[in-house]
Structure formats: structure tokens, C-alpha cells
């Protein structure tokens, strides 16, 4: 039987408040998945541009690519129990299309292209979703590998003058510097790579996708996540070559 310890404290305006001690909340165990599958996790949040410029072939190719990504990850038994995927989209608004879940519990969502490009806001949102999940890992006593943030865009951000953009840059750069985040930016079609590079970490500038080779791109992401989840967090991960999908070799 769990017990709750309460303490009466004198607050700022003389009012008495009751503070709950012991983990600050009643220790209920919320996440059954983390108890059922205690493997160390590799969380990956995929941030996708679904603005109106992506309509037509681009959004269709993207939908297929995401479907293939989920399928390939699910096919590997160990990776499917370690990698968790979340999807954040940005277009007319920033949406959490899928919260962190194992690839086998995820059906590929179908995206439609619409709206502007609030990239900064999307990155900030993706970061907070990651932080929430990391908190759940810590509470459940599950280890995690360095989280991945993977951004795909075909334009330039429409919120560069907002607070979100500055926050996004700060979060990405600090995360990379402290080895708490691994950020990849990929430019599609007419994306403004110069602006995107302001967001990307200095030692890993954005890469340009060849045409609409989303298939190859996502296969690379799957392979990279597989090796990241089987090897060490923090230390150098050997990533497969990007020549299959990128115009510039890494």
C-alpha cells in the first residue's frame, strides 16, 4: 500500500498550503509499455514539413517514405523494441501526429499538404515532446540512447522573426553541445539551405535530398537508428554513407 506524506507549509502570502512529499506525486506507474519492455530506448522525433508547397508528388512521396520507414524499423526485432518514433508536422499549424510509440504500434499516418512553414515552433514542440518522454523514461528507470531529431523541409521558415525560431536554434545547439540531442536537417526541392543551416549544429550542416528519394532517405534513417540503438549512446556512431540519397556526401 503506497502512502502519501503531506506537510503544511507557510506560503508567500501567509496562506497555508499542503505540499505532497515523496516524488512530489503519488507514485503510480503510468507507462505499462516501459515495464513490459525494459529495453533501453532510442527516441527519434521526425519533424515533417507539410506546408502547401509540398503538395502533389512531394507529399505523396513523403507519405510513402514514412510508411516504408515504419515498416523497415518494425521488421528488425531488436530495433523495434528500442527505437521509439514520434512525428511532428508543421503546415497550417504544428501538430503532434504521433506521440512516442514503438514502430510496431504505429500505422503510417497520411499527410496532406497545407499552410505555411512554422519550423521554429515545430522544433520547439518536438523538443518538448522529447523532454516529456525522457522524463517518463527516468521515472520508469529505463535507460535511453541519445535522442534523434530529424527535420525535413522544402521551404524557408515563416516564423524566423518569432521567439520560437530563436528558441529552436538555442535548444538544438545546446542539445548538441551537451551530447543530449542528435539533430539532422534535410532540405528538399527549393528549401533555403542557408536558413536551415542556422538551425543545424555547426559540425553537421543540412543535407539536400536528391529529387524526391524519400525511400532511400528513410532507409538510411532506419539503418542509422539500428546501429545507434545497438551501440553506445554518446560515443561516435558509425552511420551508413548518405550517398544513396544526398546530393552532397557527408
Amino acid at each position, binding site marked *: 500500500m503506497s502512502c502519501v506524506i503531506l506537510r503544511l507549509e507557510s506560503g508567500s502570502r501567509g496562506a497555508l498550503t499542503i505540499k505532497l512529499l515523496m516524488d512530489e506525486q*503519488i507514485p503510480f*506507474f503510468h507507462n505499462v509499455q516501459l515495464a513490459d*519492455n525494459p529495453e533501453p530506448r532510442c527516441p527519434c522525433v521526425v519533424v515533417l514539413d507539410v506546408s502547401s508547397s509540398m503538395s502533389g508528388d512531394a507529399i505523396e512521396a513523403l507519405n510513402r517514405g514514412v510508411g516504408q520507414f515504419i515498416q523497415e524499423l518494425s521488421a528488425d526485432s531488436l530495433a523495434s523494441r528500442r527505437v521509439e518514433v514520434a512525428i511532428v508536422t508543421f503546415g497550417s499549424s504544428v501538430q503532434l501526429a504521433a506521440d512516442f*510509440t514503438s514502430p*510496431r*504500434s504505429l500505422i503510417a499516418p497520411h499527410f496532406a499538404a497545407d499552410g505555411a512553414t512554422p519550423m521554429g515552433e515545430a522544433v520547439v514542440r518536438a523538443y518538448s515532446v522529447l523532454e516529456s518522454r525522457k522524463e517518463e523514461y527516468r521515472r520508469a*528507470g529505463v535507460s535511453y*540512447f541519445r535522442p534523434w531529431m530529424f527535420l525535413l523541409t522544402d521551404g524557408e521558415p515563416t516564423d524566423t522573426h518569432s521567439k520560437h525560431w530563436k528558441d529552436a536554434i538555442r535548444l538544438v545547439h545546446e542539445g548538441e553541445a551537451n551530447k543530449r540531442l542528435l539533430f539532422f536537417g534535410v532540405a528538399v526541392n527549393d528549401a533555403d539551405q542557408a536558413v536551415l543551416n542556422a538551425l543545424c549544429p555547426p559540425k553537421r550542416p543540412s543535407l539536400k535530398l536528391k529529387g524526391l528519394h524519400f525511400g532511400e532517405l528513410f532507409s538510411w534513417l532506419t539503418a542509422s537508428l539500428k546501429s545507434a540503438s545497438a551501440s*553506445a549512446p554518446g560515443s561516435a556512431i558509425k552511420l551508413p554513407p548518405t550517398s544513396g540519397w544526398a546530393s552532397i556526401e557527408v
Partner: protein
Amino acid sequence: MPVFDETGRAWDLGPKIAAGGEGVVYQLLHNPEYCAKVYHAAPLSSLKEAKLRALCELPKELRETLALPLSLIFPQNYGGQAIGVILPFVKGHDIFELYNPQSRREHFQKADFAFLVETARNLSIAFKVLHENGIVMGDVNEQNIKVRPDGTLRLIDCDSFQIERSGQRYHCNVGTPLWTPPELQGVSLAELERTPNHDAFGLAQLIFLLLFAGRYPFAGRPLTNEALPPEAAIAKFAFAFDPTPQERLLEPPPAAPPFKSLPPALRNLFLRAFRRGSQLPGARPSPSEWVTELRVLAGSLRQCAASSAHLHWKGSEGCPWCHILQTARVELFPVPLGAIPKQEASLEPLNAWVARLLAVSFEPIQFGLPSATLQTAAVNALELELKSWMPGFLRQIPFVQRNLNASHLVGLKTRLSQASQTLGHFSNQASTLYLQNFAHAQPFLKSAHETAAKIKNIGSPNSKAIAQVMSDHREQALQRHLERQLLYRAQVVGLGQSRLATLQSYHVITAWDVTESTLMALPGFGLTLTRKILQWRRLHEQNFHRSYRPPTSIQNDPSFTAAAQREAAELIAYGKLLLKRISEAQTAYASSFDTLQAAYHNAYARWSALETRIRQLSAMP
């Protein structure tokens, strides 16, 4: 594309089985018990080739435990530079599929705690065999050990083992950071001598994973703000389950079996394997020590009173699995689905059932025509009848005969029309009989089609099983949401600290605990205040419903599979009952019809005879 072994024999490569960092493994077309590994870096260096040759020449007795290569392979039959090896094809699952509770439910349904202890013992025996033969595994990890359904295992990827042959040591050179002992974290593994003490770390971690339901020894709730990824925790000897650690960095995760649920001797082995000081040569427990203690554990297991599937050490304070079920709501050892017969629960017979239920029908039976003998007999009877009303002598007179024949013909035609009417009645009677019986069977037929549709639906969004799991998920999510809304933050007018204290003493602390009946029963809580508090709860419920997103797919959720199997079993049982009822109705119909059929035959025979006689008489001059 064939490859050739050292004797020049050809082996035909089949489809790819796996591709790894080092090479690709192919099936062998005519030899399913073997496979071929072709290295990416082919042709192989002389050192690699020498090592593989040495592995091929190891004593035969080791082949039971190790998947040693049979022979090197070459692209041509005259030797040259080797490109890979022929390996035995080892069946079974990787060991992580056994210790991970989620995959254990998929691949090792019958594995209970005793099975896990036994596998751990077999694993220790395998390492004992290795070390006794001067071999060190080096790269111990979760994908190098294949476990068979009976708990025996075999070590694969032997080409990375460290062996010594003819005075030459062949190094391991690789490692997996999650499995690397603290003293080797961050150290270059190339050309490094690996010792049995290094292996002992990996072995201890594997045994820990088997006995602690897949929980990692170096994973737990962080007690400091420092980020502690697995390899950093290992490097700091931060064993999360250590009851008296030197540095308090991690505490055991919430839904883990307590360290004390194992015998003290076994606990000591884990402490020796993971604590600081274990890096000293020979400090960690040897495989033989694990074999002994695991045998003792296997002999002292007790079944828990609550569930036949829960086994634990008899000296443990209560059943650890029940405790985890109560606190974390996770059943780590479900009772295997033996209750539902396997055939009925799998998918293929389901399709057969759908077909059977859709094919069942209730057709009307048609009258069959009487046989030839019956017809002749009727005609004879009719002749007899005709003869009886005309005196014999009159029949001899030709003109009388002619006149009599004419009136006779008229009489016969009247009788024929009467007989036709009778036959017509039969047709009505038959329809009525069919409709009466069909009315009995029709509701069963309708249900059979509906049941077939429901069986087809299992697994689709509108099936009962999915609806059940979705509703459970929503309910649980609602509960979690409401459990996070604390009353002391509610800011409800009239809810001061004394009333909060009253609530707390009755265990009403979160929105989930709030119900009308509970509140009304409390002293000091009138109607107005109760209403306000309920309104506060409703507000949070509304917030939840607005932002709740159901899971997009739950096909792999274990509670869904269980619910689907139950639903399938229920539907099949119902389907069987329906088919039985329909068959009973068909039997009843057939027997009533038989009676009608016999009467019809007689009537038809008379009609046919009349018709024949009329034709005969009409043809006479």
C-alpha cells in the same frame, strides 16, 4: 551461384537470411541445416583465414554448444582466397526475445520463471565449456545466443571469439558497449587480450536479465541530475540494485522484482560481478559458481497462491510478480492460453469457419418422379378397375365396344382433370411445408451469416475485441489524466485546508477519487460544495476528452491479441451451435417431406396411368 568448400564440393547459395556489419548470411539451397556467411571484406586477409581455419579445427564436442564453421568457402573449386565460411544453421530465437517480457509472450509462451532459471543455467554451462577449452567469447551480447524452445542454447557468431591455436592467439577485436565491462569502456578493443573475467561480466548481465524480467542491472531511476546513459553507468559501476552502493547514482526501477527476492548466495554473485573491484583478475564469479547457485535456485522454487504461472524463490517475501502486477499493472507471467484450443484461435481455421457459415443454406426439396414399375402397376390397377364396371359379354360386341369406348373416354378425361388437380394440390402442399420449415431455420441462417461477418471482422476497427481494447485504453488514459489533477490545487471556493485534510484522510486526493456518493457521505460537505467539486472533476474530464487521441494501431498490443482470441473462440462456438440447429431443421423438413413424397408418387402414378389409357383409347378406330 555456387561456392566451393575446401574439398571442392559445390554449395548453391539461396536467398539472403541476414545482413550484418561483417557480412551477409545466405541460405543453402540443398542443405537447409547449413548456411553460408560471405564477408563484405572478401577476399579475406591471411590472418582472418587462419583464424577461421582454426575455428573449423576445434574439437567436435564443442559443436553442440558453439555454431562452429564447417569449412571455408571459395569462389572457385580450385581454392584461392577464401570469401567466407559454411556455418550450421541454428534455429531458435535470440536470447533477448526470451528475457524481454513483451517478446517472451510472442516467442516463448510457455516459459515460466523455472524455464528462465534453467536457461540461465544452460548459459552458464555453455560459458564453462568455452572457458575450459581456452576460448573467450569477448563480444558477449544479446544477439550472439540462440535459445531453442526447450531452453537449450547455442552460441553463434563464433568468428569473433578469442581462441588460441598452435601458439597463436586470434583476438576478438570487437565489443558492444552495452555489454562491455567497466574496465574496457572507452578502451580500444583491437588486439586486446580478453580474459574469462571480462566474459564473466557479460554472463552476469545476461543471467540478471533472465532472472529480473528483462531489467538491466545498470538501468534505474537516476538519483542525481547527471544524465547517465547505460555505458556511463557501467563505467561508474553504478549497479542500480546494489543495497549498499558506494555512490548513490541509481535506484532500482519501480516495476522491477526486488533484489531480495533471490537467495543471498545468488545476490552475492551479482554483487561480486558488478561492484567496484570486479575488474580485478578472477574477481567476478566463474561460470561454475553460477551453475551451482542456479541449480540451488531451481530446486527451491514455489508456486504463488494467486496464479499458477507465478513461480518464485521460496524464501522471497511474497510473490514479486504479483507485486509488480498490483503496482504497475503489468502481468509478467501470464497464464498460457491453453484454455482456448490452439486450432480454434489461429487465423487459418477462422477463414474455414467463415466459408462454412456463409455456405450453409436451406433449399426446398423437389418432388422426384416415380419409378417405371410403379407406373406399370398403376396402369394395371386402372385396367382392372375399368374391367370391373363393364360386364364381360358387352365388351365382346364391337359396336357396343366403340360406343362404350367413347363414353369411357369422356369418363377417363374427367378423372384425368381431377387427378391433375390433386397433383396441383401436392405442389401447394410442398411449398407450404418448405416455407413452414424454412421459417424455423431462417433465424439461424441469418445469425450464421452475421457470425461469419463478425469472424471476418476480428482485427478490423469495428470488431468487439478492438472496441474493448480501445475502450480500456481510453478508460486507463482518463484515469491517468484524472489522477494527475490534485484536489489541493483545485482552488474550489469553500475547499479550505481543513476540508482538504478531511478529504485526504478518506483517501480522496485526486480527481479520480472524486465521486458524488463519496463526497456526500463526508462530514462538512454539503450539496453546494459537492457540486462545485464535481464540476471541477467534469472540467478535467472534458479537457481529457478534447485532447485524447486514441492509439492509431493496437494490433500488437497483447491485450488485443488475447481479446481477439477470446472473441474468435466465442464466435466459433456460437457458429457450431447455429450449424447444429440448421441441421436439425433440415432433418425435420426432410422427414415430413418423405411422407408427402410417398403420397405424391401414388397420385402421380394414377394420373400418368389415366393419361396413357386416354391416349390408347383415342388412338383406336
